[in-house]
């Protein structure tokens, strides 16, 4: 036994491996991305045989793990919350069919949002799908909760959801880690797929019976949750003017807040927000004059309380209806509710420093494409070739940051970069709009759900340029392999060809080229555009092929091209606006730009970004080392 610092996601993974998970799948997405690699790491370290897979998308990840459960193995699938939308079809259906081996679905929610397109609450999707939910507050609790999740899943033959949030996933906590030989979870009995058409192939008539069964299961699970120590009351017992009901990260946040205020209140901690242990909650509500519900990111517990006349939370506006429950927010809400019931905090409650930094003219620092990123080169070429008037649809990934170069006009969800181009081509025919349409999509996103979009566009005769930005990895989420990568999470994998896929989708123009070679890349873009205009033309696919420089800096190391700005630079800002490299910095007096030697990676890609020719190769001195 040793004490180590674990990330919340690593603690979840440890719980899974300790709980005997045999098959773990995932599609990367912040804040869930570290779970799968950690499952593999713990499996190796603790001597457990776990099959791990980065699947092509979340629906596929869900189904692969579900099949393992049907074969009697404990299995788990991890994804970000919007990934559960993609996997919602098997989620809803498998609630009816049930499972055999314990099956834990881990959708990580992102209150804030920090790295997502929505603040949706996976617990509400679970409520709709009728799948029980576990809501961990800390890494330590998440690790312990996994075992209960597996056992509830097996006992009631149901998928279960373990729902962490960003602050849980990326929390750090010192935890004790077992040695390889210490007793881990028992193996599951007779794992082997057994045919059972009444469940695994249930027809609509049988589905009615399964729905009745599911409702009965939920009643029994609710009864089990009434007694489960994951739900417990802390603080003073007996009648109180105010009590707090909290789940997830909001629970430790409100406990710390009350301690800082020197206020003692009854606090009901709920680790299982659905199905809600209603008797437990009713008994709690009977003790308190008013109950404040703190949960993230939306109202799931609050929604399930039938009589909310003495309940304060997100639904009545006491708690903000958007945004995460940062400690400052919790503090303000608690202060307000305490005042409403006439309780004065014992300790001084105002923040200690009077500093107000929000008013200062601090530089805005939105995320940007890295220096040397090939996406920047591709976007720069697109803008030079098709101009500002073209319509640029794009997608989810690092390259969404192409909006800083004004080369991204839309992003909606995974795969929509292609489908929106397809749809706009059709809409523009109606509106008489002849602007060029250029779609961009990353390699992983194309494989995730761009392929059916491309099939639809080709089949229905749409015409646009599609640039697949192939950086050989899933970069934004931490360099996970894709189906087009030579190596998967569990060693070798069969490599899928992006260009071959595009041809198989029916695209009649498919060319692969490096965006690092500007003139060749632009020549291909021109031919691609001509194809979209030609008789018998259609969607033209360009695979922009260059590795992510963070993941694979070897081409830059082998062929560095240091640059300098000549004395002639007049500070016109063209390179700043059009190329937008963090390593090109405008002097504070605006007189000229300089290369930041700390940020510059000597890619030389900016040489074309000065149309006046003031960015030039620097040959005089030896190349600086790449950081």
């Amino acid at each position, binding site marked *: 036994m040793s004490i180590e610092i674990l990330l919340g996601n690593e603690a979840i993974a440890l719980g899974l491996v300790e709980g005997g998970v045999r098959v773990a799948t995932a599609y990367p997405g912040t804040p869930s991305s570290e779970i799968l690699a950690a499952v593999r790491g713990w499996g190796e370290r603790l001597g457990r045989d776990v099959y791990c897979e980065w699947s092509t998308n979340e629906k596929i990840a869900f189904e692969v793990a579900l099949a393992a459960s049907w074969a009697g193995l404990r299995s788990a699938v991890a994804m970000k919350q919007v990934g559960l939308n993609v996997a919602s079809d098997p989620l809803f259906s498998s609630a009816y069919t049930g499972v055999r081996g314990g099956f834990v679905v881990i959708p990580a929610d992102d209150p804030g949002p*920090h790295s997502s397109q929505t603040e949706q609450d996976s617990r509400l999707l679970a409520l709709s799908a009728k799948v029980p939910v576990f809501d961990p507050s800390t890494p330590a609790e998440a690790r312990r909760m996994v075992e209960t999740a597996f056992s509830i899943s097996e006992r009631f033959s149901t998928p279960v959801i373990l729902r962490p949030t960003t602050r849980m996933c990326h929390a750090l906590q010192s935890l004790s880690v077992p040695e390889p030989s210490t007793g881990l979870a028992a193996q599951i009995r007779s794992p082997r797929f057994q045919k059972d058409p009444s469940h695994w192939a249930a027809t609509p008539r049988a589905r009615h019976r399964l729905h009745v069964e599911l409702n009965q299961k939920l009643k029994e699970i609710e009864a089990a949750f009434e007694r489960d120590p994951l739900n417990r009351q802390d603080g003073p017992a007996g009648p109180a003017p105010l009590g707090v009901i909290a789940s997830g990260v909001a629970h430790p*946040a409100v406990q710390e807040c009350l301690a800082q205020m020197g206020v003692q209140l009854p606090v009901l901690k709920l680790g299982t927000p659905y199905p809600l242990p209603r008797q437990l909650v009713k008994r709690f509500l009977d003790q308190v004059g008013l109950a404040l519900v703190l949960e993230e990111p939306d109202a799931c517990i609050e929604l399930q309380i039938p009589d909310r006349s003495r309940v304060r939370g997100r639904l009545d506006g006491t708690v903000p209806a958007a945004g995460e429950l940062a400690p400052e927010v919790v503090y303000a809400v608690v202060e307000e509710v305490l005042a409403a019931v006439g309780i004065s905090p014992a300790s001084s409650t105002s923040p200690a420093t009077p500093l107000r930094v929000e008013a200062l003219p601090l530089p805005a620092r939105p*995320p940007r494409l890295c220096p040397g990123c090939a996406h920047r080169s591709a976007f720069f070429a697109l803008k030079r070739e098709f101009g500002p008037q073209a319509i640029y649809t794009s997608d989810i990934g690092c390259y969404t940051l192409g909006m800083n170069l004004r080369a991204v006009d839309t992003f909606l969800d995974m795969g929509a970069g292609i489908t929106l181009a397809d749809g706009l081509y059709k809409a523009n025919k109606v509106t008489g709009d002849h602007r060029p349409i250029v779609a961009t999509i990353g390699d992983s996103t194309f494989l995730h759900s761009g392929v059916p979009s491309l099939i639809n566009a080709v089949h229905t005769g749409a015409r646009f340029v599609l640039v697949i930005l192939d950086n050989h990895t899933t970069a934004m989420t931490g360099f996970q392999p894709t189906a087009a990568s030579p190596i998967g999470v569990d060693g070798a994998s069969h490599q899928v060809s992006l260009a071959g896929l595009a041809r198989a989708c029916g695209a009649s123009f498919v060319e692969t080229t490096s965006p690092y070679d500007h003139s060749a890349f632009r020549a291909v873009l021109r031919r691609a555009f001509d194809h979209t205009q030609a008789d018998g033309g259609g969607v033209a696919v360009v695979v922009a092929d260059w590795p992510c420089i963070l993941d694979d800096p070897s081409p830059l190391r082998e062929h560095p091209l240091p640059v300098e700005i000549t004395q002639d630079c007049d500070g016109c800002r063209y390179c700043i606006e059009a190329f937008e490299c963090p390593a090109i910095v405008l002097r504070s007096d605006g007189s000229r730009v300089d290369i930041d030697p700390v940020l510059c990676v000597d890619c030389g890609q900016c040489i074309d970004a000065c149309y006046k020719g003031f960015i030039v190769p620097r040959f005089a001195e030896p190349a600086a080392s790449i950081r």
Partner: protein
Amino acid sequence: MTGVLAPPETRIIVAGLGGQGVIFATRLIAQAAVRLGWPVVGSETHGMSQRGGSVLSHIKLAAAEAPLIRRGTADLLLAFERHEAVRALHYLRSGGVCVVNAEDGLGYDLKEALEQASITVHALPATPMAMAQGSAALVNVILIGFACALGALPIPEPALRATLAEGSAARREQNLRGFSAGADAAAKAPSAVERRDG
């Protein structure tokens, strides 16, 4: 020594830009604390916000469960860039300490506000020091060495060195040299240190 940051109950904010090694610094502090048997909780920034944008970590050396530090309650702000230091300044409590990588102070005409809040700023030009040692990536360990030697980071130096010595072999020597350079700067070059004791 400031004497205000008695271990183990300390709240630390680490601020910087994506690529500056905020997470590495966070793990270094947390692992060194664990080596001493101290409980640790904290929070890291991952994902999109890591791409060159502001990155903020929270570390509590305390028997706590909540990962985030409320504004106005942090003891120490460790910042690898001065604008990010200013952006995170409101996390500090009255009497807190800011250790920042900067040529001279924070800028922004904050003198009066800092005095009012009794916040001490220690500035060290860590970027040129790091470049002189061959890599801008050393700013984080230089600043941690500096904060440690100042007594602003209440973790004994041997625990930090031992944690660095266990790190990846490729960077071990360089990191330890950077740490020493930061520690030496605190001892040898008091002129590099700006103090605003309240």
